[in-house]
């Protein structure tokens, strides 16, 4: 197992008396894949959103690549290494190409340097035939593939994917699983919130089962804190 890339200690979040998250420590190793399982409301999506800096939680300490990080004041440099993809991805108005190169443009890259990367991501996700289709006319599966291409083109070190195969038909689900499997094999750290058995059973997938905001089992065994 590779060294830890992200270590978060003491993640707590609650609404009134209702506990949403209570994770004493979460350690993600570089290049490993993790699937968060558990019933609806167990805290999977909230944990991903906290790690992505999209939702606030009390965190005792966080280290990324050995460097201390304040998740409450999320640093821009961490955003460049860690990408979150929604369960129902949002595509901006404009073209599919514009969507996929959005993050590259945000990083200040010029068209000549990002165009080959975008073309490669389009080919990888198999969305070449969709380039002339307005984003709002894409199906859920097509949107998911565009969103995965949009995330992958940025070459982040950590992917956070929230229910990437939920509500997809059989064909779209298989296409999404193939892309996710590719990401897991590409020596990236991938964390998914998911109920999909086929994803859970992917090779080298670590399973973290959550319940009532806590990680209850790790690869079927008790969690060592």
């Amino acid at each position, binding site marked *: 197992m590779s060294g830890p890339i992200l270590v978060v200690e003491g993640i707590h979040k609650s609404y009134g008396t209702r506990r949403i998250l209570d994770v004493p420590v979460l350690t993600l190793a570089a290049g490993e894949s993790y699937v968060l399982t558990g019933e609806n409301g167990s805290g999977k999506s909230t944990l991903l959103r906290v790690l992505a800096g999209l939702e606030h939680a009390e965190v005792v300490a966080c280290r990324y690549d050995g460097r201390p990080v304040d998740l409450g004041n999320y640093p*821009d440099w961490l*955003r460049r290494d860690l990408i*979150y993809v*929604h369960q129902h991805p949002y595509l*901006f108005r404009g073209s599919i190409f514009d969507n996929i190169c959005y993050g590259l443009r*945000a990083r200040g890259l010029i068209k000549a340097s990002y165009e080959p990367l975008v073309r490669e991501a389009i080919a990888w996700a198999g969305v070449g035939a969709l380039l002339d289709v307005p984003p709002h006319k894409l199906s859920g599966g097509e949107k998911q593939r565009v969103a995965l291409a949009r995330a992958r083109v940025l070459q982040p070190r950590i992917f956070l994917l929230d229910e990437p195969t939920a509500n997809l038909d059989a064909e779209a689900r298989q296409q999404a699983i193939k892309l996710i499997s590719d990401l897991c094999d590409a020596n990236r750290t991938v964390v998914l919130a998911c109920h999909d058995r086929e994803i859970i059973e992917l090779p080298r997938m670590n399973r973290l089962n959550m319940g009532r905001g806590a990680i209850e089992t790790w690869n079927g065994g008790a969690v060592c804190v």
Partner: protein
Amino acid sequence: MDWLATTREAFALLFSGDADLWQVILISLRVSLLAMLIATPPAIAFGYLLATASFPGRRLIVVTTQGLLASPTVVVGLILYLLLSRQGIFGSLKLLFTQEAMIIGQVLIALPVLVAFTISAVQGADPRARETAVSLGASRMRSTWTTLLEVRFGVMAAVFNAFGRIVSEVGCSLMVGGNIAGVTRNIPTAIALETSKGEFAQGIALGFVLLLVALGVNFALAFAQGEGGMK
């Protein structure tokens, strides 16, 4: 009064290139467009801030802004008149009865419309738009711009509504502009004056232009909205 003859005379005035009439139209458009140019950027930025940020007094500001939507333009004109008159705080600037005073007045009238509509547009935005932009590494400025682009039809509605309100307001322009021919006489104040003199032809011609501007603005919005509008 022969309505048909008067209307025919009005269109003759309009299309014969009557210099006085077209001067009134140009002054009206110049004042209102400049007021929009000045008011729009800060109002949209402030509206975005009020829609997305949380700070003490925010609710009070939002409610006050919404309340100001219905403020009578003549009251805005009265307050501005008192401020700009010789005894007023800004009397030394000698702005009363100038186009600048009319622009200031129209900026004040446009601001609440722009802010309130922008708040509504941004609050109606899909929260995933900003989250996606942020997650893809967009700076605060870029994610703000992206969100505004996603709700651009709502923001455009704000701009067109504000323009429609100021280009047709008479109270403030009359109070602080003084309706001086060739200087501060715009379409609404000219209509009021010509009608009071019994010169209905010019009033109708100017009214027709005002109606065209208002309709043009609405058509522009509907076309811009595409499927949500004219298509």
